[in-house]
């Protein structure tokens, strides 16, 4: 006798049911995601390639210093030299779209999960499932529900890439030291003020790490999603595989790696205020107002007050 759980059949039936009865929902999602993707794509391609590259290099200079800016410039030249510029920009647009949507859903979900144990107990296994399910598996229902193309690729990417930001947002907020929360309350914070003035800023490094992870996962998934026609550099890699064209595969892979390094370093620099020497806020402020930032040094020797002795 053969024993087999009909889970595959159920999944099949569920997708079919959705296809029959909730087509309006998927059309709506399709519309929204498509519009966001179009917007991002249009924004990135509205500039000439050189302009976009210059912006990336400048951000690198601001966040990571001149060495990284130099590296960014060189690596972007390599991408252009490979003839992969347009595909890479397409991939970037897909990553940014998927990331933006993943964060829009993921950060609030993480906040709710941090503040409510019941939500956390429901969300946690769901995230585990989303993360451990082989990435290719999402492609099938996504393609069935949304057809082939960019949108199902982005949807699959969102599902695959969202877990880290939810997890790390929740973890970051839960790990805010108890006395900091007490301090917030003791000085009269409302629950909303506590969240935005104490918990979120304190959890920011953790949340930024989650955002960084989400971006990196988006990138890897976007490449896989080329199998259902998402486009971008993934197409080149896929073509390389299909034709056993090692050269094309390596070139496509290199473009992905370069994009990954640039995105990783830049997003990481926002999460660790110490690495670049400044937090985003203070960096902005010191750019805007250098004089004020330098003042403490001038005053320090003028006031030999208490406390100075403890500085060591």
């Amino acid at each position, binding site marked *: 006798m053969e024993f087999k759980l009909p889970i595959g059949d159920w999944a099949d039936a569920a997708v079919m049911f959705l296809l029959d009865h909730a087509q309006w929902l998927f059309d709506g999602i399709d519309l929204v995601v498509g519009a966001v993707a179009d917007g991002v794509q249009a924004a990135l391609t509205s500039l000439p390639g050189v302009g976009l590259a210059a912006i990336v290099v400048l951000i690198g200079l601001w966040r990571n210093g001149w060495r990284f800016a130099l590296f960014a410039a060189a690596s972007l030249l390599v991408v252009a030299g490979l003839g992969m510029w347009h595909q890479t920009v397409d991939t970037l647009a897909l990553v940014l779209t998927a990331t933006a949507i993943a964060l829009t859903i993921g950060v609030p979900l993480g906040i709710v999960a941090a503040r409510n144990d019941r939500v956390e107990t429901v969300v946690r296994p769901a995230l585990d499932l989303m993360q451990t399910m082989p990435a290719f598996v999402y492609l099938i229902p996504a393609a069935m529900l949304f057809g082939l193309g960019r949108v199902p690729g982005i949807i699959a990417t969102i599902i695959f890439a969202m877990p880290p930001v939810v997890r790390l947002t929740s973890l970051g907020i839960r790990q805010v030291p108890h*006395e900091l929360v007490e301090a917030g309350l003791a*000085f*009269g914070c409302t629950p909303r003020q506590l969240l935005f003035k104490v918990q979120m800023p304190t959890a920011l490094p953790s949340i930024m790490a989650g955002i960084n992870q989400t971006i990196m996962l988006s990138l890897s998934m976007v490449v896989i999603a080329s199998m259902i026609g998402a486009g971008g550099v993934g197409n080149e890699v896929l073509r390389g595989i299909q034709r056993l064209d090692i050269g094309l595969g390596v070139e496509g892979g290199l473009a992905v790696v370069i994009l990954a390094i640039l995105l990783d370093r830049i997003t990481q620099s926002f999460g660790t205020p110490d690495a670049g020497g400044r937090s985003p806020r203070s960096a902005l402020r010191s750019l805007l107002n250098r004089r004020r930032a330098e003042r*403490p040094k001038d005053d320090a020797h003028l006031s030999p007050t*208490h406390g100075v002795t403890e500085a060591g």
Partner: protein
Amino acid sequence: MTAKIAVNGVTRIFGRHPRQALDLLKAGLSKEEIFKRTGQTVGVLDASFEVEAGEIFVIMGLSGSGKSTLVRMLNRLIDPTAGEIRIDGRDITKLSRAELTELRRRDLGMVFQSFALLPHLRVWENAAFGLEIAGESLKARRDKAQQALDAVGLGAYAESFPRELSGGMQQRVGLARALANEPSVLLMDEAFSALDPLIRTEMQDELLRLQAERQRTIVFISHDLDEAIRIGDRLAIMEGGQIIQVGRPDEILKQPANDYVRSFFRNIDVTKILTAGDIARRDQVTLIRHTGEGPRAAVRQLRERDREFGYVQDGRRRFHGVVSVETLVSAIERHNGSATLDEALLPGIEPLPVDLPMDEVLPRIASAPCPLPVVDGQGAYVGAISKTAYLETLGRTR
């Protein structure tokens, strides 16, 4: 006068069914029995005390004695299970959320053991935190934060980040944050316990200095008796969630309520608790400085009483100086009858303030030629301390 803070029969039970435990408490069960039967922990049990406006009230106890829970009930970071807490006569346990928020913003400041500064904010922004929460304008925030930072000696560090400062300096920021919105009550939870001993003493002095400038009502939690005695006007001693004794340090020292309290004080140096005023004696000859009483009369008085030194006051009992038989006689010889008491004053006699701790009295009487006079805050003569009197006090209390 009504007390600034009046705590009456406050109990806090930790657990899922506090009411049930409360009923058992009323039925006379002990904390241990309640824990065994219901699994609920009694954090604070029937605490009552009053804090007067302008005093530093120290709640002392070992860890686990419930003192941190107790102070957190004063701003309702922890809600009492039973009892009432009145601040300025208003029962804060009955406040709505909005009223409570308002009370915390306006009347209560708090300083934490771990400093609890926000790492992403500059020093001045941390100091201005309470003001920002209360919705004050940027300019008001900057000004008041700067004032508060100046008051704690950190005015020059306004633009630094907390991580750039030492522990002591960070806690000064914590103090500035609590002072910035000028609360009438300051809650300090083991505020100096995380600092090393030298800095801790410095911070205690700083607190006393700030308190001398502007009187606030301070409730200070500590497990360090030296600290409690140093800064506290009155102490409450807690054990196992209950308040065992409330009183001035010297009162508790002289009449400890039980062995627990006594053991607290066993290793304490009495010279840190008793002050010059406690050991001054009024058995010296006092002379009034006015035209009628000249050196001759003074010499006669001293010889009659068989004393060598006389303590000169003016008509309003203000201490003026010390004369000796020797200086009086030589003044009479020099000026031949027209001499005044002023010409016979011993040089370099500094009177002791009445609240000077005994341990600081010692070096001064050791080097003084005569028993040193003690004066009160208005400069009036209170008595004098001789080396013999000092040693007798030490012998009696040891």
